[in-house]
């Protein structure tokens, strides 16, 4: 009897493993890149995520917004209150209306959302040849392959293979669906200077910004996994007890 149930679960498991919903889509294989948060027990490498934020701030933030994040969230990456306040105060945000009914600019506070580079989608497109630099807040959840894809995308710029004609203002990328992306290669060697001495290679910057974006998309990941481990252990013990009770209750009927 128990076998049949296990069989049923195995069947479902097998079915999910070939989960059709994700099979659909462009079939460019995304190579697996080792990240600190891989696997069941992985956690975010704070130093890497902090460097990733620096890459975002100095490079990507010129085009991409992250409107779901607030500066205060950066504390979770290990920045101190002072550091967060300093980062926030570097931007000017619009506030108001004040008592006179006027809108005014003031330095950012930790409670403010990340300032967006463009006031609206049209302005963003106008500045980027009509292409839209997407909001990166949940990008790691919004693409097949997640952080692996981001890493592949950022390190995947190359010269177009012979015979491929590129569209106006398009760049060849090995991992972007269709291989023609409107974003020019954003990362060049030593573009960002890391305070901790990490060499500013494209691979390092790509790994760090991918780590930062993964954290931004799933800030709850560490708490979730830690809770999950406890709950699974608890349930396994409870399951053993429940099975023992069941055996005991049924002992006299067969």
């Amino acid at each position, binding site marked *: 009897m128990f076998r049949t149930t296990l069989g049923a679960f195995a069947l479902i498991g097998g079915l999910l493993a070939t989960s059709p919903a994700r099979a*659909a889509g462009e079939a460019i294989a995304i190579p697996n890149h080792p990240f600190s948060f891989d696997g069941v027990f992985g956690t975010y490498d704070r130093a890497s995520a902090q460097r990733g934020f620096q890459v975002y701030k100095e490079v990507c933030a010129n085009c991409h917004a992250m409107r779901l994040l607030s500066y205060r969230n950066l504390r979770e990456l290990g920045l101190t209150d002072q550091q967060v306040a300093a980062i926030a105060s570097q931007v000017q945000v619009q506030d108001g209306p004040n008592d006179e009914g006027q809108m005014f600019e003031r330095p950012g506070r930790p409670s403010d959302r990340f300032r967006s580079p463009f006031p609206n989608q049209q302005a963003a497109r106008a500045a980027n040849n009509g292409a839209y630099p997407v909001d990166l807040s949940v990008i790691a*959840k919004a693409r097949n392959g997640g952080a692996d894809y981001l890493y592949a995308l950022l390190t995947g710029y190359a010269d177009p293979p012979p015979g491929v004609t590129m569209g106006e203002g398009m760049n060849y990328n090995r991992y972007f669906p269709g291989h023609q992306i409107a974003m020019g290669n954003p990362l060049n060697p030593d573009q960002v200077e890391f305070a901790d001495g990490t060499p500013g290679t494209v691979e390092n910057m790509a790994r760090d910004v991918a780590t930062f974006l993964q954290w931004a998309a799933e800030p709850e990941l560490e708490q979730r996994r830690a809770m999950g481990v406890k709950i699974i252990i608890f349930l396994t013990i409870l399951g053993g007890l429940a099975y023992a009770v069941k055996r005991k209750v049924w002992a006299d009927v067969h």
Partner: protein
Amino acid sequence: MAIGLHDSDFKNPVIRWVDQRMPIFTMMQKEYGTFPTPRNFNYFWNFGALAMVNLMIMIATGIFLAMHYTPHTSYAFDSVERIMRDVNFGWLIRYVHMNGASMFFIVVFIHIWRGMYYGSYKAPRELLWMLGVVIFLLMMATAFMGYVLPWGQMSFWGATVITNLFSAFPFVGDWIVTLLWGGFSVDNPTLNRFFSLHYLLPFVIVGVVFLHVVALHITGSNNPLGVEPKGPQDTLPFHPYYTAKDSFGLVIYFIVFAGFVFFAPNFLGHPDNYIPADPLVTPAHIVPEWYFLPFYAILRAVPDKLGGVLLMFGSILVLFVLPWLDGSPVRSMRFRPVARIAFLLWTVCFFVLMYCGGMPAEEPYVTVSRIATAYYFGYFLVILPLLARLEKPLPLPESIARAVLGGGGPMPAGAAAKPMDKA
């Protein structure tokens, strides 16, 4: 039935006082305590109880989500992400709700499959079965509308594709679509009415589940042998035997559920739903949630739109008449060697359809979907009616007790009497 205080067996004065005036304790004792249940259930009989628990989990988490969710096209996506980030344990509540919908369908698919394999839909349980199909339809409507609420790309485009199907109906089609949309495209009015209905339908489901259980407690449960219990030696009181067995099954279910929620919360979802809805950008492949894929494949297997829609609805509506399509008096497939194979093949077709539904509408998936669709319906409309006449079933056991306990002779006195004492 006499008017006046109920003759209660309860000793506790408070319980007795209530029970005399409103005998719910007597009822609970009768329906869940001593309720005579076939002694030979296997673990497939856990899934009804699991579905009940799952429904309660959906309602509990849904109510908390609704406290923080904003049903407006400009705010819905961000409000869901706010739940994920800023609401205390919001990520947990949302992931339980999101994966709970998938768990609900896993559980109910197995529950329905169990009913089909062991012939639980046959007389006298036809109405019980039909109420189950109603619950299934309501679940599908609820899940479909729930998936629209986070207002991601798949929410929007899924809603557009599925609501558009209704336009295939002659005369009333366009009117129905406008009614669903509350306008002339999927937009804020659509989101608002879907939210309202998504909150309402689960409570309708609770009502139908109640009727489902009422009907169950009139006919009693079927069992893996498909032979009715003939006396007390064939049954056990529900408590403690099946409460103990269900508890164990429940823990296993929670482990699977927790595996998804804590370690792969987005595994069953589509990444595109983390892109805010954009009416101007159509995703490369619009795929519904995994539990709709078999039906989606049937829809796309038919070259004609109306035909596809009718066949898709037909694939579920045919379940309503299943008790009359299958005229064989033998319930359990264990004793139907040919029907058993035909049904297992049907099960394979179901998974094949699920796979094809997630694939682009091109060859070879279209042809494979067509063959699987033909068999899906052929099983119900041709094979079962024919087998009812042609198949020679294996000999049925004389009684449940005989089959389970083996040997001949009456039951050992202790085994049958003891549980009764306990209860």
